[in-house]
């Protein structure tokens, strides 16, 4: 139980080439145990999103590696990576990335649909999650008709629908007003606390960051040297 669930080892990421070559990550190592809540903070452009994408197997590093449950992600087949994102991970982004033409329910059910959950069960589970997020009555509405706060809650419901073990959230409250932001944040911590879901959260809000169990600060693609999290043993 002591082994880390999610582990990054010397991650490097380079964008562009030649003149435009840019090292967005210059060797970042960190780890998280099951049920952790980890805040990634730092200035805009420091490489937080890049790091999150690598941790969530949404992108490939140019150096170093990510392990999930001890297994190196880079040696997994594309299929297994797809499966991992579908079954183990949930994503919430600043831009909600909803299917505007589909109903709220269909949006929430999408990961389950990909997982081939039968339609009936899909509906039940989606309604359950929507109920928890206070959106059950909007289930059959078009996603485009909702407000920003509601949309982000739909995105969260979608991230939760397939019962993930890790939630990656990239500035989930960044596009929301204070009130909606607070609701969404409360929900995230509730999931972390009550369901034991590991939370990896990028945020600009010091308040949110403070509510996390651990914080790492990224400066120009590197962990800040004085960051206590950076000295945490990677193993």
């Amino acid at each position, binding site marked *: 139980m002591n082994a880390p669930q999610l582990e990054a080892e010397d991650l490097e990421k380079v964008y562009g080439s030649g003149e435009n070559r840019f090292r967005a990550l210059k060797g970042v190592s960190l780890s998280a145990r099951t049920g952790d809540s980890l805040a990634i903070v730092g200035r805009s452009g420091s490489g937080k999103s890049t790091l999150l994408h690598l941790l969530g197997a*949404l992108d490939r590093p140019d150096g170093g590696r990510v392990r999930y449950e001890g297994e190196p992600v880079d040696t997994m087949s594309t299929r297994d990576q797809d499966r991992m994102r579908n079954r183990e991970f949930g*994503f919430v982004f600043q831009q909600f990335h909803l299917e505007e033409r589909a109903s709220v329910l269909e949006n929430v059910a999408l990961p389950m649909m*990909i997982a081939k959950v039968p339609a009936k069960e899909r509906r039940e589970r989606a309604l359950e999650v929507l109920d928890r997020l206070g959106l059950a009555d909007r289930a059959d509405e078009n996603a485009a008709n909702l407000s920003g706060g509601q949309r982000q809650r739909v995105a969260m419901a979608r991230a939760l629908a397939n019962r993930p073990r890790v939630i990656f959230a990239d500035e989930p409250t960044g596009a929301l007003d204070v009130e909606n932001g607070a609701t969404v944040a409360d929900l995230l911590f509730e999931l972390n606390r009550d369901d034991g879901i590991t939370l990896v959260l990028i945020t600009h809000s010091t308040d949110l960051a403070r509510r996390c169990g651990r914080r790492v600060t990224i400066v120009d693609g590197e962990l800040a040297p004085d960051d206590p999290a950076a000295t945490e043993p990677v193993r």
Partner: protein
Amino acid sequence: MTPRDLLRSAGRNTFRRPLRAFLTIVAIAIGAFTFTVTSGLGTGINTYIDSQTRAVGASRTVQVTGTSVMSFLNERMEVYRDDMDTARGMDVGSGILGEEDLQRITSALGPDDEYSANRQVSALYYSHDGGQRYRFVYNGYWPGKTANLVAGDQLRDDTDQAQLIVPSYATRPLGFASAQDAVGRTVEIGVLGQDGEVRTVPGTVVGVQEKSLIGGNLPFGNQVLDDALQDASWAGSAEDDAQWYSSVLVTGEDPDRISRDVAAQGYATATAEQTVGDYKSIVNGILLLLNLLAGVAIVAAMFGIVNTLMMSIQERTRQIGMFRALGMGRRRVFSSVALEAALLGVIGSVVAVALGVLAGRLLGPMALDLAGLDLPGLELFAFDATSLVAIVLGVTVAALVAALPPALRAARMDPMDALRENR
């Protein structure tokens, strides 16, 4: 994702841009429609030709002529023999046959084979009551032939009256007040005999037939008239004069053997099957051309599909990337794009097949009417389910092939395509 889910999302994606989907479907439908109409024509005409062979009952008969009817391809010099002057007035389009030929032909026949030699009729003109003469183009005797009449009745063979039916445009020039007026009146047909004398054969007009695009524009008579015309054509030939025939009909149990043996003697032979086969190859040649056009239309439609789907996935880069982020596999992305194409193909071809069948059913009889082709049993368009299903399947496969490049491109997209997009 169950097949139903796939279908639903494919449907939604296909009709994201309704106008674009519609235009692509139209392009597909044009090709499929052409295939349908061509297939309908092919089935209709070939079925008719087949049924005619059966109806004629002439399947045991072999027609023997001097040279092939289609001999325009091998036109050549023919040595003139002195006795050929008695073959005057004969149509030599398929050569002429003399007694010597007849002997060589019959020597090739089996003991049970029967034959009859047909002489040529040399009718020249016809007129009424000593009035203006008009060239009488005789097309032979066609047992059981019926006409679209504007006046009078059909020909009868259970009579000893020499009857004929004249085209409606001929009634006034011949000197009748109207078509109705012509019925029951007599015309005189001038026939050139072997002796160079022109004799007239009287015939009673029993019917007047409608003028039309194809057929119905020549006078024709019953068997009594035909006999009279033959007699007049050969009048004046001396007993020892050479006899000339335009064709010999041989009937036997094994027409293929007859055909082979007689052909070996250097004559052109045609069994009913071969004659029908000739018609069929002409029909099939035309159909091939139409099918080629349909193929070109389908290829054009395929480019349309490539274009439509390329634009579609370009627009949906974010969506597809998001699906990939949520764990949708490359294969599924590929098949969802392919399914979109299949949907376009199926909709386009089913609509086109339905329209094609409808058009054939409605316009087929109308076209036959317009052409005055009142041939019992002839349906210009006939559709069989197998070919229609084959058209839908074929067009759908073509659509799937066209989907290959866009589907591959879509399958290569990854999550970052969604996340990068809104930078």
